[in-house]
């Protein structure tokens, strides 16, 4: 083949890939919107889709649409915040997973690696088990758990970050090990607290550690929203930097990436995003690994596409999982983490199988 023909081939391939990425963005956005709507329509009180639409339209300012007040209340104050929170948490976890994987240069890295989940878990256990005893008056019970979990996660991450940073440079290898160490320690203390707890506390603890969107409301939904802004603004910067980091830290530096800045920024954002999600919905596993991985298989590892697409997919996945969690055994509710792991883990294994056979 002549040089010009090869070049035309390459250009065609590149533009084909771009078209494919665009198509997948479109499909994922449609999927998210569809799931969002379905999740609002389905619930304990049956409300027809057309009526749901009417209520949503009215709420967003359209005049002349009629709806019953009780239905509107169910939709606007119970289902909508829950689905919105689910989307936010799923997106936050998926983006955090993608960021961690880029930073650790390892497709199996998980937001839990930097200790947010274990620190938050310990703090939550302390809030559940000790909260009532130590500060019965302060603890309105409602605020202590999320605030404690958020702070616990943040403190654990700061500790791990401090341990692995020398002379202004963070060693990712040390960070991995420090994360394991801190995680084991927090796990032990959490176990001790579980041992001390009574039956009701143990049940609370288990339910919390498996995650749930039960009790979602607008204030929780609004609490987690601010993290979306810096993530969205920084996506293209972080995407570029993480692409270069795939070549190694030295290469990234040669390419003009301020490696330490990217590390601190990423770790800070992930700690905030995961800390807020854990505080509002408990520990939800596997979204952070499955969503970025699926996107990588669909559009390739380019982080500039990966970060926003993983957010979309993660949000959609969590809405879907929550839908299953509250409909499968209705009127009871399954823990969310059970669904994400029960579906996520086999999917993950399937990915591994197909990849090792070279099919993907």
């Amino acid at each position: 083949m002549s040089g010009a023909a090869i070049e035309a081939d390459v250009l065609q391939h590149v533009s084909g890939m771009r078209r494919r990425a665009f198509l997948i963005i479109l499909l994922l956005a449609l999927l998210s919107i569809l799931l969002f709507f379905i999740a609002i329509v389905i619930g304990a009180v049956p409300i027809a889709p057309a009526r749901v639409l009417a209520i949503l339209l009215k709420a967003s300012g359209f005049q002349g649409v009629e709806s019953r007040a009780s239905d509107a209340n169910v939709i606007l104050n119970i289902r909508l915040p829950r689905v919105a929170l689910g989307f936010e948490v799923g997106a936050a976890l998926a983006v955090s997973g993608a960021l961690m994987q880029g930073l650790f240069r390892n497709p199996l890295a998980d937001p839990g690696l930097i200790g947010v989940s274990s620190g938050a878990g310990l703090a939550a256990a302390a809030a559940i088990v000790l909260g009532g005893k130590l500060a019965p008056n302060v603890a309105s019970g409602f605020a202590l758990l999320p605030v404690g979990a958020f702070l616990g996660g943040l403190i654990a991450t700061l500790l791990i970050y401090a341990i692995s940073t020398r002379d202004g440079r963070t060693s990712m290898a040390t960070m991995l090990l420090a994360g394991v160490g801190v995680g084991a320690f927090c796990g032990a203390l959490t176990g001790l607290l579980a041992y001390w707890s009574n039956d009701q506390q143990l049940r609370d603890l288990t339910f919390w550690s498996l995650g749930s969107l039960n009790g979602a409301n607008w204030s929780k939904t609004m609490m987690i929203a601010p993290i979306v802004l810096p993530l969205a603004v920084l996506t293209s910067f972080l995407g570029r930097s993480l692409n270069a980091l795939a070549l190694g830290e030295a290469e990234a530096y040669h390419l003009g990436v301020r490696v330490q800045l990217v590390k601190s920024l990423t770790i800070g954002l992930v700690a905030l995003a995961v800390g807020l999600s854990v505080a509002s919905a408990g520990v939800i596993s596997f979204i952070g690994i499955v969503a970025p991985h699926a996107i990588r298989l669909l559009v390739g590892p380019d982080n500039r596409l990966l970060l926003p697409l993983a957010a979309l997919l993660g949000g959609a996945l969590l809405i879907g999982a929550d839908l299953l969690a509250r409909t499968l055994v209705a009127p009871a509710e399954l823990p969310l983490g059970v669904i994400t792991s029960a579906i996520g883990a086999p999917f993950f294994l399937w990915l591994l199988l197909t990849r090792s056979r070279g099919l993907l």
Partner: protein
Amino acid sequence: MGAFIEARALYYTVGHQNIVENATISLPAGRLIIVVGPNGAGKSTLLRLLSGELRPTSGSIVCAGEKLQGTPTWRLARRRAVMAQATQLAFPFTVNEVVRIGLETLGANTRGSEADAIVAQCLRRADILQLACRKYHTLSGGEQQRTHFARVLCQLAAGRRSESAQALYLDEPVASLDLRHQLMLLDAAREIAKSGIAVMAILHDLNLAVAYADELVVMHAGRIVASGNPADVLAGGIVADVFGVDLRLCATPPGNTPFVLPHGHARRVAWRLPTPPVENRFQPLPIQEGATTQRSEPRATLPGIENTSMSFSFWP
């Protein structure tokens, strides 16, 4: 043209060991400097000091008139590109994407036909265009090395829009390349030097080093033990001492370009002078009767590679 890098009395110390010791070197614009030396001599460390990746324990480095340490990372990335001795890629990017990374971190416009043209030109220069759509992981070692060469070319091309003084650092760029691609890469390095860029390369092949270098630098145990005109350095005899081998210094006509043969090798192979002393080495050597005919024509330079344009027209 002035020097891109002026480094004086560089020391790099780990513990009590001087890995680079009292190194003074300058990289003038438009020249190809080749560094040779045994394993562990400190060549890569010197390169990493000059590229700004490592901070010298003591000594000063001035880069394009500014202190190297004070230069912001993003500006440095536009001024110099580095091809490291070994690079591991963490995710399954395609060759084309890897090369584009060389553009996008500079904040250069990465979309549009201009960027596409630069990328295609760099891919072609590194003779990797035909593999551009492949996943990097599926390439052979030499093909991966060519991919990184294309990437650093891309970075230089993008940086050239805003910086006039530039440098290219190559750490054993031909280590896993076949003969033809070794020549191709070094030809490209020469051409890049000719376009006014300071080029520093580390090589282990002394003959290639002598054939291509404007200046040859010999390192041993962290020190620069010789530098200057390649033929003179080679004739000085220090190379044999540094490597601890016996070398036979020979010369090829015309112009008596020097080359060395390891002595052990020379003893084992029946040695004869190049016969007859041809005036014009572009002429095919006389083929003996009965010998295999029409093998390959000995040539002084590369036969034109069909999909390799030899001009650096994309430098704006």
